């Protein structure tokens, strides 16, 4: 059910190194973006870098967010390196 899941997207270096563009995950209750990041990092291997030395930026529903921001079913959560356009 879409209602009980959330979408996670990765961009740029993270997308490449994780070999993943998008995930659909069950939406846990009372979860923050930081919780989600920790859960993904615990997968190990390249995923560990999500809690490594390099900063990971967070967007929730296409707006920049902090690790403490809550995420819920139906949300689009994105993780990416600091931006370098222009």
């Amino acid at each position: 059910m879409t209602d009980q899941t959330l979408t996670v997207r990765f961009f740029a270096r993270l997308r490449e190194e994780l070999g993943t563009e998008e995930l659909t995950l069950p939406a846990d209750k009372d979860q923050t973006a930081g919780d989600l990041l920790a859960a993904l990092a615990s997968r190990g291997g390249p995923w560990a870098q999500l809690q490594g030395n390099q900063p990971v930026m967070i967007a929730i529903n296409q707006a920049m967010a902090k690790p403490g921001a809550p995420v819920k079913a139906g949300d689009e959560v994105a993780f990416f390196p600091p931006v370098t356009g222009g």
Partner: protein
Amino acid sequence: MISIQTEDFDCAAEYAALRDSGAGTGAIATFTGLVRDSGDKQDVSGLFLEHYPGMTEQVIAGLIEEASQRWDVRKARVIHRIGRLQLQEQIVFVGVCSAHRGDAFAACEFIMDALKTSAPFWKKELSEAGEHWVEQKASDVARGEAWGK
């Protein structure tokens, strides 16, 4: 108006459109970014640009809105290219027209500086030696923060 596109853009057409903004316009400031041969490393032969569709447009619209609250902005135009770009190709265009010179310069530079640290684009430098994702520069972050709120 905001465009995110793979194709090149025509500064002359953009300038003409900016200029057509009423008899109160007295100043047009533009900025264009080009692919340079030295970025994080030397001998760059091109770039690959990735973005976050949807969020990019929202962020840039917010920057134009903020600029319009802080300065007199009659018209603002942002174009950013994505995909693969060769050396000396145009990457980004920011144009602002205003009643006043100071406002045109400030709004144009603010949008450009803030875009670099808040719009979700990522640049990969291509060279004969391979390719690598560009790291965000502390100097860019400092320039973005210098605009305050």
